[in-house]
Each structure stands twice: as structure tokens, then as C-alpha cells.
């Protein structure tokens, strides 16, 4: 009755289970409506008529699976997304980071890197970048590659410039990129203190201790159980009085470990680890 291929719930479950079993990527605890939509999107773009057919191909052809992962896990972002957040980050968090001799930051779910460079630019303006290491991680290798390259569409720079100014940027945003054809290449020196690497929040463990973890608009794609697990992972990965920054519409409201955090800026969703 529908023109789009039927995505029966049982078949979807089966697909996610077999992907987990064969490839180790666990989407079974993702929020269902959006993963279903992304799979449907992949199916119609690649002419699969049924989940069953998709399942079979994914299990047999690793390169199709690679393509599937790249297309279904990429998150959209922008530089200085929610400028008021970056303003608060500088005012409430960077001033305290400045008291550490060596600063470690984890940007989890860094996608194509826009928010990583935004953070690096603001750290640089506060004189903190040189003694910082930003670990930028994502599940999506292709997105990480884009992030490493640091080249974005030139036509987006106008919006980013406006965001940068609203975020409290102190210089001219055009100081941070050079344009080539229709691309904007971000200042390469920003990358010296950034480590890009693959990390799967649904499966991998803590790998260091940080004073700040930013994970914005990633948890919304997970169900409640997985959100709880990931917040526990962040808790373990933060030093005492370390900061956790979430997306605009994400909260610790339903999280089991919310008592271990206090709000630093309620509106901008910045929290501090207090519990033991």
C-alpha cells in the first residue's frame, strides 16, 4: 500500500541483529524512528525492495556494508552551532580549564569536524590551544576523513562567520581559512592539537581522562538504555569536576547517573561532575 519499501519491524530487528553479529556495529539500541528512516533512505537510493534483500546483500558484500555505514551514520553539523553555547563554554568552562597545565578534551561524535574546529579556534583565542589536546572521535571513518581534511563549502562561511561573531569570537573569522575554488580550507595549525580517531560510543570503552567532554546532538539518536550507558562512560572518563556539554535539547533528566552531575548552565546544557 505504500510506495516506499515496507520496513517491517521484525525484519528491521533482524537486520540490526545480524549487522551486530557479523560486523560488530550495534544499532539495536538506536532510537528506532530515525534509524528506520535512514535505512529506508538507503534502500530507495540503492534500489533494495525489501529489508530481507538488503540484509542478504549487507552480509555478503562487505563493500556495500561499508557504504551503508557511511551513509547511515553521518550526522549533520555546522561551525559554532548554537553560538550562545560557545559563548557559555568560554565564560563558564574555559576559564576553569585555564587553571590546568595540560588540557584534555574529548569531542565525541565529532562527525565531519565543524564543532571540533570551532572549539579549537576559541581555545586558541584564549591562549589555551597550545597546551590542549582535543580527541575528536566518530564511528564514521569517512566523516573523520572529512574532519581531518578541514575543507568546507565556501558558501557556508557566511553563516559560520555570523555564528562565530555571536559566539564571542575576537578576531575576523576569515583569518581562519583560505578559499580555494568553492572550498574553504581551515587554518592547518589548528589541527596540530587535534587527534582524530574512530570510536564507537555504543561498543567501545573509555580511553583517557578528560576535563571536558562535548557530545552534542549525538545522544538524541540513541534509546534510553544506550543513553544511560554512554553517560556512564562519560562519567568514568571525566576527571573530578570535569565538564560535560550536551546538545541544546539533550538533558540528563532521564539519565540514571544524573545525581552525579550538577548544572553549570541549564539553558546551554553544560554540566559538571560532582558525585563520586
Amino acid at each position, binding site marked *: 500500500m505504500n510506495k516506499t519499501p515496507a520496513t517491517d519491524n521484525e525484519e528491521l530487528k533482524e537486520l540490526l541483529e545480524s549487522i551486530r553479529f557479523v560486523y560488530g556495529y550495534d544499532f539495536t539500541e538506536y532510537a528506532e*524512528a530515525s534509524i528506520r528512516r535512514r535505512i529506508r533512505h538507503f534502500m530507495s537510493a540503492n534500489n533494495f525492495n525489501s529489508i530481507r534483500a538488503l540484509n542478504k546483500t549487507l552480509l555478503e558484500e562487505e563493500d556495500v556494508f561499508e557504504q551503508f555505514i557511511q551513509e547511515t551514520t553521518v550526522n*549533520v553539523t555546522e561551525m559554532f552551532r548554537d553560538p550562545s553555547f560557545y559563548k557559555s563554554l568560554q565564560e563558564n568552562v574555559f576559564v576553569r580549564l585555564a587553571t590546568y597545565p595540560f588540557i584534555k578534551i574529548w569531542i565525541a561524535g565529532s562527525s565531519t569536524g565543524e564543532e571540533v574546529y570551532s572549539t579549537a579556534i576559541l581555545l586558541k583565542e584564549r591562549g589555551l590551544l597550545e597546551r590542549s589536546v582535543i580527541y575528536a572521535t566518530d564511528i564514521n571513518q569517512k566523516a573523520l576523513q572529512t574532519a581531518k581534511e578541514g575543507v568546507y563549502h565556501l558558501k557556508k562561511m557566511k553563516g559560520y562567520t555570523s555564528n562565530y561573531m555571536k559566539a564571542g569570537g575576537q578576531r575576523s573569522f576569515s583569518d581562519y581559512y583560505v578559499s580555494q575554488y568553492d572550498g574553504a580550507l581551515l587554518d592547518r595549525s589548528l589541527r596540530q592539537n587535534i587527534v582524530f580517531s574512530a570510536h564507537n560510543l555504543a561498543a567501545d570503552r573509555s580511553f583517557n581522562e578528560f576535563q571536558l567532554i562535548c557530545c552534542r546532538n549525538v545522544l538524541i539518536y540513541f534509546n534510553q538504555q544506550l543513553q544511560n550507558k554512554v553517560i556512564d562512560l562519560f562519567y568514568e572518563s571525566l576527571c573530578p569536576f570535569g565538564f560535560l556539554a550536551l546538545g541544546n*535539547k*539533550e538533558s540528563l533528566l532521564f539519565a540514571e547517573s544524573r545525581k552525579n552531575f550538577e548544572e553549570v548552565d541549564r539553558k546551554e546544557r553544560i554540566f559538571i561532575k560532582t558525585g563520586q
Partner: protein
Amino acid sequence: MQYEAVVIGVSAGGLMVLSGILKELPGDYPMPLIVIQHRSKDERTLLEEVLQDKCVISIRQANEKERIDRSKVYFAPPDYHLLIERDHTFSLTCDDPVNFSRPSIDLLFETASEVYKDKLVAVILTGANRDGAEGIRAVRQRGGLTIAQDPATALFPDMPRAAIDTGSVQHILNAAKIKDLLLQLAKNRTDHA
């Protein structure tokens, strides 16, 4: 028919017509109303505040993972898509804009129709684009009730017209009649309860 939820899509010119409809609904309206109003991403909660001042029914911005309750009007937050999960909770995503829109009416309507099927009422009001047309088609294919504002009475007729052009709209009405129909559907529900 016992409907379980109302979804509304509205864009340019929406505030007047929306407040005209919502302010007539009682505080115990027996269904949730879930609204996509295209809005500036820089705005935070002004829309909800302005409307709450005029309405008896509770108006709020949808939170992710929140349970969907009757007698409430939920708005999609600016710059996020709003989706409905099978357990009747909300999901938000930052996926690419659909029809240049985030939130997108099509996305809400499509996911809502998967959950509520023929127990869904979908309404398209004034707007200057064609978001919601695919959504209306999906709602009708699953047996839901579809309504569009009469383009002749809409401040911006393109959006209701695009919905009507799909051939999937059952009722073409002015705003006052849409309000009456929503009240009637509520009454049918109570009568059968």
C-alpha cells in the same frame, strides 16, 4: 472512528491561524496535538510562550524521549526534526533539512502515520513551500484523516495547495471549520468513551 492524535503542519503566516484554532480547544482536549511550525533557528521558546498566553490547552515544546500525552499541544523545537516512536515518545534528530526545512512536516507526518496509522488526523495550514505534501500522502495511505486549509483563505496558499494536489486531502476547509471539525472529533471520542 476513534482518533488518537492530531498532527498539524504550518509555515509562513501561521501564527494567526494557529492561535485562532488552538485558543478554542478545551484544556482537556482528548488527544495530543503535535505541531510543526517552521520557525527561525535562533528562536528558542517564544512561539510557545506567545500561544500559551492565548490558550487554555497546555502548550509546550517537545522534549526528546518525552511521552506523548493527550490534552497537550507539542511544538517541534527550532532546528530539529521531530519524529514519533512506536512507544508513543518523541525523538529529535539533526538530519539534513527536508524541503529546506528543519523541522520538516513530511518527517513528522510520515513517522506519526507509521505509529498511529488510521487513528491519525493530519492538518496542513498556510505556508509558502510544499513541505507536508508527501506527509499527507503517507497519512492517507495508512487510512488517516486528512485536512487542508482552503488555499483561498490561507495567507500563503502554496503549502495547502501542494497537499491538495496530491489527491490525498479529504477535507478542504477554512480555519474556523477546521477548528469545528477538531472539536467534533473530540466529541465523537468522548461520546464513545
